[in-house]
């Protein structure tokens, strides 16, 4: 069966790829487009490691068919930093030691950005519930939540 030719936009750049009908966006991002920052933890939408933005909405890329992205916009972890500058969320994750093994980190950072775009001043509880779909087995979430709240303060222009 012939492959589908998909034209989309990834991290602000036009992109095109070939895929099969059953292939997920996650598979194609990694094996087709070569964007390996989006991680695979389960392929069933339960871990959040493959989180990306699709048309501005946070989604698990394992549960999106690659073909669905025709004409849409996709944003991945590779698009979070701008130029030679880390995003404040990335910087705060580093400062707070909010990662140990780091496998959940790209998904968490993409999800945190989605949170702070929607809610620039989340409470701890709001942050925890919003990020409940991003499993981390190393940290117990403490330093992650602190990094998220500190990044939010920084992005609001308040002294951390």
């Amino acid at each position, binding site marked *: *069966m012939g492959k*589908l030719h998909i034209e989309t936009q990834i991290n602000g750049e036009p992109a095109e790829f070939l895929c*099969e*009908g*059953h292939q*997920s966006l996650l598979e194609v991002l990694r094996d087709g487009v070569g964007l390996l920052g989006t991680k695979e933890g389960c*392929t*069933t*939408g*339960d871990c*959040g490691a493959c*989180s990306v933005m*699709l048309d501005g*909405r*946070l*989604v*698990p890329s*394992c*549960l*999106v*068919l690659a*073909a*669905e992205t*025709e004409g849409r916009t996709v944003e991945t972890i590779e698009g979070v930093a701008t130029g030679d500058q880390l995003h404040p969320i990335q910087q705060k994750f580093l400062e707070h030691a909010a990662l140990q093994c780091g496998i959940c980190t790209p998904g968490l950072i993409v*999800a945190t950005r*989605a*949170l702070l775009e929607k809610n620039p001043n989340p409470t701890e509880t709001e942050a925890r*519930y*919003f*990020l*409940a*779909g*991003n499993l981390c087995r190393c940290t117990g979430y403490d330093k992650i939540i602190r990094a998220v709240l500190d990044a939010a303060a920084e992005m609001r222009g308040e002294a951390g």
Partner: protein
Amino acid sequence: MLESRYEAPLTVQDAVDLLSADSEARVLAGGTDLLVQLRLGRSAPSAFVDIKRIPEMSQLETDGTGLHCGAGVSAAAIFEDENVHSLWPGVAEATDLIGSTQIQGRATWTGNLCNASPAADTVPALAAVGAQVVINGPSGERTVPVESFCTAPGRTVLTTGELVTRFMIPSPAPRTADAYLRLIPRTEMDIAVVGVGVSLTLDANGVVSAARVALGAVAPTVVLADAAAAALIGSSLDDAALEAASSAASHAANPIDDKRGTVEYRKRVAGVLTKRAATIAYERAKERG
């Protein structure tokens, strides 16, 4: 699975034609159930019929008759809708409970319903507010109440060529409000062990004049616990009425033992949540008085 096609029809009729021509094709709305089954090797559709390019599938609006929600609208979009929040807070609560933030970016009421899992969160909430499902197919359009849509776990009233196109929730009567509660072991990311949706209408004196109590995850399909509703009607939600409703709900529950809960536990909790959801709905309805 290896041969699955991807189809993205632009009209309902095209979708019906695709589904009619191929009984192994499956509708792709949010994909959060369908693609999981695909990944786990439990489903191998011949084609995915993505309905999200059909314009009316993405419409979400409230008018004088109630809410009209296209089959492709995501849970996140529904939850963000001001009208849903203010008119059907219980439905909004249930919608917010479907999986994680990520899942909500994809999942739809349609999928939650068509997956026909006994534990779907939005089904009891939608049943409690009397939601209707609009179906289109080779022989035209028909409408089915949410509570009659699933016939058994994994089975629905849909026949070959048919698909859900939208949901309709009638405008709430005066002094009417709903609530939804579920029990999961964690705080998020679980399938309901028990879910309860309650909608109450009060008279001018704060006496319950109409009630619907819908139970999820305690039977093969959603249960409308009429006896529990009857126990609430005519009361001002005093302890006796709540206890009666609670035990009626426990009685109406007909669950199974599985990895998520036991028969005994589910029956008990169905009663507890009925009491609690009714209390919340009552307070909300009073505020609307």
